[in-house]
């Protein structure tokens, strides 16, 4: 068996080991490679940046669960940091039971950095079944749709909710999702209630949303870990972060760089071995 045959029949555990090394080493010893800024990340950042303090709210829909959290949670946290540092009112929503926990984790890690208070600076909306019905019902009345916040306090008693009735008082909906949920936000809420919609999505799903960006149905997009890293860089450069801010996505980009390179090398080696062996078998 020559080298190429060996490569074609390589034990998959060697590949697993290489992937493991490529992920772990840059996480332990970050390289700190710079990430360029894409126009859609900048568009979303600029839009949020122009929202007046204590004016219309930003509704962040946490449309993801822990499976896609490494890519999406840094986006949610960065947007929360941006809003809290500018005193922009935030409503956090989870349309599935497993999404609610992600809000809890994101708020726990960010609110204390800015002294954000529930009911004054942000509202944590509880889970209500019926995804699309909830989206549409919020267009009529947010208080009537949910009744109470996640902590059980009546929404109409919260100071932040005194001037937020429905989507008329929402400046932007940001759907952070690894599924098709942002499309529902754009179609059902963006079109019906004329609310601006932004999206944060996994790198795999980002390609789907370019036509929505081109039509203006999404005002901006954070695509994958790269988008999250770009947003982290933007809020840091504008001074919206506290000292000792950990750029989780930026660190992850090093690991992603190495794994992508490994994948490219593996695919090229796999193809070289495949074609060499095919040529050899034809000659025989």
């Amino acid at each position, binding site marked *: 068996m020559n080298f190429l045959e060996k490569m074609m029949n390589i034990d998959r555990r060697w590949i697993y080991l290489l992937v493991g090394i490529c992920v772990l080493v840059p996480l332990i010893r970050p390289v700190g*490679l710079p990430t360029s800024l894409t126009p859609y990340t900048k568009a979303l950042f600029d839009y949020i940046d122009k929202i007046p303090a204590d004016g219309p709210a930003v509704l962040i829909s946490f449309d993801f669960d822990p499976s896609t959290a490494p890519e999406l949670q840094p986006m949610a946290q960065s947007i929360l940091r941006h809003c809290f540092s500018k005193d922009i009112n935030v409503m956090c929503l989870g349309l599935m039971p497993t999404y609610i926990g992600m809000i809890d984790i994101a708020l726990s890690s960010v609110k204390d950095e800015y002294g954000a208070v529930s009911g004054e600076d942000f509202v944590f909306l509880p889970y209500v079944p*019926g995804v699309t019905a909830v989206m549409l*019902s919020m267009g*009529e009345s947010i208080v009537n749709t949910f009744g109470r916040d996640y902590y059980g306090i009546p929404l109409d008693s919260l100071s932040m909710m005194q001037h937020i009735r429905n989507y008329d008082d929402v400046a932007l909906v940001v759907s952070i999702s690894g599924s098709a949920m942002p499309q529902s936000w754009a179609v059902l809420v963006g079109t019906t209630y004329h609310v601006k919609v932004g999206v944060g999505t996994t790198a795999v799903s980002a390609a789907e949303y370019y036509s929505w960006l*081109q039509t203006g149905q999404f005002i901006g997009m954070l695509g994958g870990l790269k988008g999250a890293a770009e947003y982290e860089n933007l809020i840091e450069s504008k001074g919206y972060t506290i000292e000792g801010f950990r750029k989780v996505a930026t660190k992850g980009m090093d690991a992603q760089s190495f794994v*992508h390179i490994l994948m490219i090398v593996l*695919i090229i080696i796999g193809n070289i071995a495949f074609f060499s062996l095919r040529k050899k078998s034809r000659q025989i």
Partner: protein
Amino acid sequence: MKRQIPLAIAFICGIGMIIQFFIPHPVSQRTYQEALQWQIIVGIFMAIIAIRSLFVVHIDKIKRKKEGWGYSFITLFAVLFTAFVGIRIGIGEDSLFSHLYAYIMVPMQSTMFSLLAFYMASAAYRAFKARTAQATLLLVVALIVMFGRVPIGEKVAPWLPAFIEWILMYPNMAAQRGILLGVGLGMIATSLKIILGIERGYLGGG
């Protein structure tokens, strides 16, 4: 009657909501709000049916000692325990309920999804071959995008991000838009078939 009544409800609700959409009258608006509340209530009953179904399936597995019945036991225990904690002890920051989520649910789901990276690397090595012209095109574009979307690629070839944006903004978008239009037309056709009672799959029984 078991079929006619659901068909009539689907027809009346479907046509009613279409007509309502075009009538900006207070009565129409109230009907719409009421319908949304009903939809949320139906969603709650769906959750009850789903929980019942989960229990029926797993209790049957445990009773018959089917292969992997132990996992069914763990599933039911997890459902009951989590519900008990949420209802009796309460939810909120630093509660046992949120700790169950943060320290059990999050690591388990993250682990399952992380394993994909290993399988994908192995699968790409074995299966991603330039066998045909289309496969070659796909392979080349995928390699370019993979390389250009990470900082190391941007460092090696500074022009690459702009080129990738072009790929995503034009060839990719053209294909995506075609798919979207097809999906949209399909959704309209399916909705009409359901409202008019031509598509009856949702009634069950084939």
